[in-house]
């Protein structure tokens, strides 16, 4: 049998492969590359967390947990969210432990979307929301965000994208790929639109701890928004635990019950060893986590200053670990820029359009890299710009 496509669903066939994949293959074939193209911390999970996981294995914690996840972990999550964003959730009915935020996004979309419902998604943003919407038979509607607004979502732009079929707004701040954040006032304006049009918010706050010039604000903490919001968070970025695949969803018990239904039939439960590790992270990981945050902040300033010096225009990102400079002073589009930079200077960055059309003309640079590599990358990018401008 040669043509297998007849066995594949139309939905899957219509989803384009990730734009990053192509670039990944290209970078992988090149030697000696300094990569600012990664989407994860350069720290390994703190040792005490790894050690706690080990200990749990020694003690024989190798079984299923309840579908919702270990109750002690949900209790810690509730305490954490109360402390950090000031919203209270009942660990018994309002929190679900998931296999990373990715699973939470998927099951939330599947639990809430009717075919044809529209999901409003910031553009640019992380690559999985639009395909996730498509797999749930919804329609992804990009909400453009702009360099001039420091890539914050504007209420008027959001409102212009709303139709009678709009149902869900996805918020993803601090943002991958832009490093943008939304302050309280920005969120208040969005919340008004959400309430006016009776939308529901899925708020992916995985980068919340990586907020540099102030405190992260969750839309769930605004008046009337708690029950309209499914707050998603996890351990990957703050605690350098990407490979553990562990996250959670907090929200109204009806929503949690619905997504738990999908979770119980498809995933059963998040791996117990990852749950045990996450428990250790929440109980004893704060100090080390804050050190990592400081360290990202140092390098954020370094990369930003470097871009200034080589004349690469970039707004000051206040969250996550990305800078999103404009390459509009060069004759290249994002993809050409990245390919040429890779070939000529052996520096890997990710084309902004991989995250949506509004990312065209920009590149994502991750500063979760050593100071030495960042400094060298800046020199090489400076050489590249001098040649091509």
């Amino acid at each position: 049998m040669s043509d297998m496509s007849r066995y594949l669903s139309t939905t899957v066939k219509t989803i384009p492969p990730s734009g990053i994949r192509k670039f990944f293959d290209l970078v992988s074939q090149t030697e000696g590359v300094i990569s600012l193209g990664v989407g994860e911390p350069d720290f390994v999970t703190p040792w005490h967390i790894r050690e706690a996981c080990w200990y749990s294995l020694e003690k024989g914690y190798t079984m299923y947990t309840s579908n919702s996840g270990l109750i002690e972990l949900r209790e810690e999550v509730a305490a954490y969210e109360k402390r950090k964003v000031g919203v209270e959730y009942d660990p018994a009915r309002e929190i679900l432990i998931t296999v990373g935020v990715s699973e939470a996004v998927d099951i939330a979309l599947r639990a809430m979307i009717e075919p044809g419902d529209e999901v409003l998604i910031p553009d640019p943003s992380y690559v999985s929301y639009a395909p996730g919407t498509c797999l749930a038979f919804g329609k992804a509607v990009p909400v453009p965000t702009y360099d001039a607004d420091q890539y914050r979502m504007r209420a008027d732009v959001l409102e212009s994208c709303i139709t009678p079929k709009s149902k869900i707004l996805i918020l993803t701040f601090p943002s991958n790929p832009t490093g943008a954040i939304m302050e309280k006032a920005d969120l208040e304006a969005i919340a008004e639109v959400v309430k006016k049009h009776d939308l529901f918010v899925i708020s992916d706050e995985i980068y919340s701890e990586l907020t540099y010039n102030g405190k992260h604000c969750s839309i769930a903490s605004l008046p009337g928004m708690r029950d309209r919001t499914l707050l998603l968070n996890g351990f990957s970025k703050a605690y350098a635990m990407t490979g553990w695949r562990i996250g959670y969803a907090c929200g109204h018990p009806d929503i949690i019950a619905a997504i738990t239904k999908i979770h119980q039939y498809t995933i059963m439960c998040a791996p117990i060893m990852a749950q045990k590790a996450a428990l250790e992270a929440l109980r004893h990981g704060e100090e080390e986590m804050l050190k990592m945050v400081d360290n990202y902040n140092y390098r954020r300033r370094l990369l930003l200053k470097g871009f200034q010096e080589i004349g690469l225009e970039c707004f000051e990102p206040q969250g996550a670990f990305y800078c999103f400079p404009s390459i509009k002073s060069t004759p290249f589009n994002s993809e050409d820029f990245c390919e040429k930079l890779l070939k000529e200077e052996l520096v890997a960055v990710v084309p902004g359009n991989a995250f949506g059309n509004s990312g065209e003309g920009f590149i994502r640079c991750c500063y979760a890299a050593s100071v030495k590599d960042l400094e060298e990358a800046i020199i090489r990018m400076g050489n590249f710009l001098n040649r091509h401008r």
Partner: protein
Amino acid sequence: MDLQMKILNLIERDARLDAATIATMLGEDEAIVAALIKKMEDEKIILGYNTVINWDKMGDQSVTAMIEVKMQPEREVGFNRIAERICRFPEVKSVKLMSGTYDLSVIVTGKTMKDISWFVSHKLSTLDQIQSTVTLFILKTYKQEHFMFNDNDDDKRLVVSP
């Protein structure tokens, strides 16, 4: 945390960071950072800048020992006078006062084991206040000043990821 502490935390791990880089990283003025480093050097808060070297990789055959020293403290000066005297020997790398079953921990390097035994028997044990010594030879270093010596912790991340 005050600025001095932040600077120290950074250069403790990487002494080669220059004032300009440190200033950028901390969002401070370069002149202020440079002045603070100078001040801390003048005040001997910063004593010097070392390099952590894996001498084994250079085929170095020298020997290092930790000597546990028990001694009689002296009236008024306690352990200080003798400890400072032991510091004067160039082969001594570090001297620390310890709690527990002995008093001073002295780290000594020599070209051979004989060098070290000669130092212990002729220089150290002969001091009046020294009651006894135990010499422990260091066989292998795994970690020093936060650096792992057999470091296989290279970057295992995918080169590009979303």
